[in-house]
């Protein structure tokens, strides 16, 4: 099981109703359904990934998450997941606001753009970093937004969004301290 999936699963109470924005090939949602007995639905923009979702028995809507949530009433879902998708949306502020509107809790997984390796590459090599969490070159990255763990904390603080849990992950697993310096990715459980 992917490390980030393991920690996301731990944040989800059994028998919940879960929406995954940018659910990819449905791997995480199928775990959520099997391990946590949740009802689940996903939104995904990539046609090939949709076939995989249907194969896994994951209900999925082909569409883009920037314009996808108006269909849902307030607090419809127990959890809305935005794992590794927030940095790829056009309007993350709106997407998070919408996720918090339709979900009682929101799980956000972000790549940390300011970890030590990235900082070294920028500082000493003078190049845009390519790291574990950011495996792309500048010319082929799908990422539109570049943020760090601290940036996301600030974002939440400014909007009175409560961070219930913050889990920072490196190559060796969960990181206990200096999250912003040492982790590749971070997963937040938030609500408003």
């Amino acid at each position: 099981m992917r490390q980030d999936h393991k920690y996301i699963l731990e944040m989800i109470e059994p028998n919940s109703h879960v929406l995954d924005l940018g659910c990819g090939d449905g791997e995480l949602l199928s775990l959520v359904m099997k391990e946590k007995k949740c009802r689940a639905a996903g939104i995904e923009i990539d046609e090939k990934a949709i076939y995989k979702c249907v194969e896994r028995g994951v209900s999925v809507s082909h569409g883009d998450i920037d314009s996808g949530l108006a269909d849902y009433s307030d607090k419809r879902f127990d959890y809305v997941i935005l794992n590794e998708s927030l940095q790829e949306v056009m309007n993350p502020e709106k997407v998070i606001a919408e996720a918090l509107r339709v979900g009682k809790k929101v799980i956000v997984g972000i790549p940390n753009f300011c970890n030590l390796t990235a900082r070294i590459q920028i500082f000493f090599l003078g190049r845009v970093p390519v790291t574990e969490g950011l495996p792309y070159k500048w010319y082929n990255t799908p990422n539109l937004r570049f943020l760090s763990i601290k940036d996301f904390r600030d974002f939440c603080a400014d909007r009175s969004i409560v961070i219930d849990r913050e889990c920072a992950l490196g190559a060796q697993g969960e990181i206990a301290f200096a999250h912003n310096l040492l982790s590749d990715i971070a997963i937040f459980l938030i609500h408003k």
Partner: protein
Amino acid sequence: MNPRACVHLRPLKPCSSLLKMTPQFIETQYFTFANAPNEIVLKSGVKLGPVTLAYETYGKLNADKSNAILIFHALTGDAHAAGWHKDAKNPGWWDPMIGPGKAFDTDKYFIICANVIGGCKGSTGPSSINPATGKPYGLNFPVITIEDMVVSQKYLIDYLGIKKLLAVSGGSMGGLMALEWSVRFPETLQSAILIATNYKHTAQQIALHEVARQAIMADPNWNKGDYYGRELPAQGMAVSRMIGHITYMSERSMEEKFGRKLQGKEKVGYDFSHDFEVESYLKYRGASFVQRFDANSYLYLSKALDYFDLSENKDLVGAFKGVKNKFLIITFTSDWLYPSYQSKDIVRAMKANDVDVSFIEIETSYGHDSFLVEIDGQSKLVSHFLSNISK
């Protein structure tokens, strides 16, 4: 061509054993119901009976009758969805999708497909004999709606002893029927697969149909629908079919298929004979249409499509209240006749009702015809969707 080819006169006997193994060739079966005084009451309030449905089945119904899937055909389709009729040149209209190991796997599922009422392929329609007069109904046939088609096929499912269908499915008009079945008989099915369809006909869809209808009705041979046993309205049918074919393709698919290629000549003729391949193609399609389809049926069925509006009594969201089955909704990027946004409206209304729906827009250039020719993507989706439903 025998102009009465679409008139059926046989005494009809339903198949004696449903579990009978289908031999090498598929045979159409017939089910007659709604004999007087138990005629069905159509949406218009008019009574119709007796009603015959031509239908075919593929695969075996299992012991607890839980593996049945009802397929609905499109406007000019028929009950012959798969396999081969004896001496036929072509298999059924959805043969690439239905059969052993195919998307609708006949090794696992029992597939049923019936010709709609109003049609001309063995089910009661305007070319059938009106028992009151002993002559074909013609325009005395009552107006039929999508709801009437669905209700009449429920009789067939009841007759076959099936309480709960594993799925209903269809493309285009068949998709409208699958949608109508889902909201009308939600307790009778587990899932529905809607392909290249809509929940109401839009002004453009109605307009295109009206041009096709006018082409038929402007043909003097149409004779207010009374042409059986006489010269057929071939010219009107040809034009209506040409319009239809244009709407079923996309600009790109026409460009890829025909471009500006000339038909049987090196240079354009500077006359009004056929120069371009696309002209010959449409002419051929148009001319062959009258051989296989009844003009009045075309009028009735196209009208049925135009009348359909799932949101006519309540808003679309309200229409899906209480719907519990799962849905798979498929559209195609190049389908401009039933564009994807129409299915997205359906998805949105379903989501508002917490209905379990999966939606995909397949990238393809085949236009509306994609549901008949884009087999790879549809096969994967349908086979996986069904195997998850039947788990």
